[in-house]
């Protein structure tokens, strides 16, 4: 569609796509949580996003900020566990960062994502490398900001972005994402004009492709880590070799954002 600015409908579509994706991967998320946690992450998020979609259906807020705050509050009110308050805070902080504007820019979205990640870090006091959702969220926020800021090189095109059907769950334990996607120099491709992700939808889609890819790679990179936060930390070294369920769901949610932007 190529709309310059993002409306509350766009954010609503994101949440619907995220809910679909979480539902589809629910059992896989629970399986990952069974390995190093308590086997409820898929059920938790499925319950939460289903409720979030229902809440948005009951009264679709007029502004993007209000959409995300409502989603965050719903997750806090319905999920429980560690992921409920953490994802809830992420969405609430992101929503608050968007303020009351009826439409927001891609740069606003990037700032909001960064605010959300900051909220998670604060609440959970987890750093990157602790084997949590932060390991997927933080590189994704950085990648999005960097891509929109123009630090994007030519690449293999949109094909390099994760497809809706590509599992976010790593299969082999070897992160395949380029390392520079994690340190502020994303190597992921854009299909907009080179040098800058313009305000049009295709540029945003490309930047979100980079963010989604960074999240996927970040999730996969949790495999060799020993956990230092959350339930998995009780396992100590035995948590090594398993992908973090929260990082995996974070990658799913970022992929949903790209999917929606790509058809916007």
């Amino acid at each position, binding site marked *: 569609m190529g709309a310059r600015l993002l409306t509350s409908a766009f954010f609503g579509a994101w949440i619907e796509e995220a809910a679909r994706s979480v539902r589809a991967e629910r059992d896989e998320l629970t399986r990952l949580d069974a390995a190093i*946690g308590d086997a409820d992450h898929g059920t*938790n998020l499925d319950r939460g996003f289903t409720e979030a979609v229902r809440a948005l259906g009951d009264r679709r807020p007029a502004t993007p900020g209000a959409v995300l705050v409502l989603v965050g509050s719903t997750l806090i009110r319905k999920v429980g566990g560690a992921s409920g308050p953490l994802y809830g805070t992420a969405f609430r902080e992101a929503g608050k960062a968007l303020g009351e504007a009826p439409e927001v820019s891609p740069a606003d979205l990037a700032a909001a994502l960064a605010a959300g990640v900051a909220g998670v870090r604060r609440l959970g006091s987890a750093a990157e490398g602790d084997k949590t959702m932060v390991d997927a969220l933080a590189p994704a926020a950085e990648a999005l900001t960097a891509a929109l800021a123009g630090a994007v090189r030519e690449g293999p095109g949109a094909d390099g972005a994760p497809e809706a059907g590509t599992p976010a769950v790593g299969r082999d334990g070897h992160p395949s994402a380029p390392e520079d996607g994690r340190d502020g120099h994303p190597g992921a491709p854009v299909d907009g004009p080179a040098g800058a992700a313009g305000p049009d939808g295709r540029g945003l889609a490309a930047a979100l492709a980079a963010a989604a890819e960074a999240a996927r790679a970040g999730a996969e990179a949790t495999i060799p880590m020993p956990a230092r936060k959350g*339930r998995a930390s009780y396992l100590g070294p035995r948590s090594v070799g398993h992908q973090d369920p929260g990082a995996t769901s974070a990658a799913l949610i970022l992929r949903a954002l790209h999917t929606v932007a790509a058809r916007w």
Partner: protein
Amino acid sequence: MKKLINGAGSVVADALRGIAAAHPGLRVDAENRIVVRAGGPSPGKVGLVSGGGSGHEPLHAGFVGYGMLDAACPGEVFTSPVPDQVIAASAAVHGGAGVLHVVKNYTGDVLNFQLAAELCAEEGMEVTSVLVDDDVAVRDSLHTAGRRGTGATVFVEKIAGALAETGAPLAEVARVAREVNTRSRSFGVALSACTTPASGKPTFELSEAEVELGIGIHGEPGRARAPMRDARELTGVALDAIHEDLPLSGDVLVMVNGMGGTPLIELYVAFAEVAGHLAERGARVARSLVGDYVTSLDMQGFSVTVCLLTDELTRLWDAPVETPALRWGR
């Protein structure tokens, strides 16, 4: 997986209906998903609220009643409750003297109770939280989630509940709750994994020849897998781990707790060995519990919790209590 349920989605709601039907002394607020004493808040008495994931029955609803909790907030299976539940429970039991939240140290429980406490404070309730973190299987460090809260929760709730019943102020009740936690340690061993209704599969696989040492109460694997041994040796591992962290001596309160699928006859066998191990270390079983108190669904295994008693703690332990799972003196 075969379970005596109507469906994975309705387990907690269905069990709450059963609790309501079985215990006239409790009031189940199905909409808010909380269990409170039937009598309502006692004016001038500190309200005690606890909660956590379901699947640990009788914890927590089974400990609501005179001399113990005023309200429990059961979350989904192995999922901490949401702040709304905690807020509703706190409001329901607030008798003007403040509310004590007894929180087991899990990221989810801590965060949800924390958000709830902030909102309670905004609504003008005085709330103090006490963290239970007694599980010596987990290394305690600033850079980890810290020790889990397990069996000592029962001791904390019973003893703090007894003090609250005397009309003691919130700070005092919180003080004794923290003291119980400080003086208590636990260690758990699994002979089999548990199966959550939602996943339908055992949370881990364990061969006939192995046990998991240092398990928690959520079906998570333990710190280490080890060869199966007899009751004397397995309880010895648990007592060693506890003793290393908190040297055992004097009068102790001991709980040998079943994880849900362990026959009581085996818990008594284990208790005999625990009493022996304690005596070898110069500690004496002054008070005890043997049975299922903090469970992990159908898991087979046990945990041992020891609390170093003081005269005050013994007196409060002995005070009357009237809950579905713990009752004496009334």
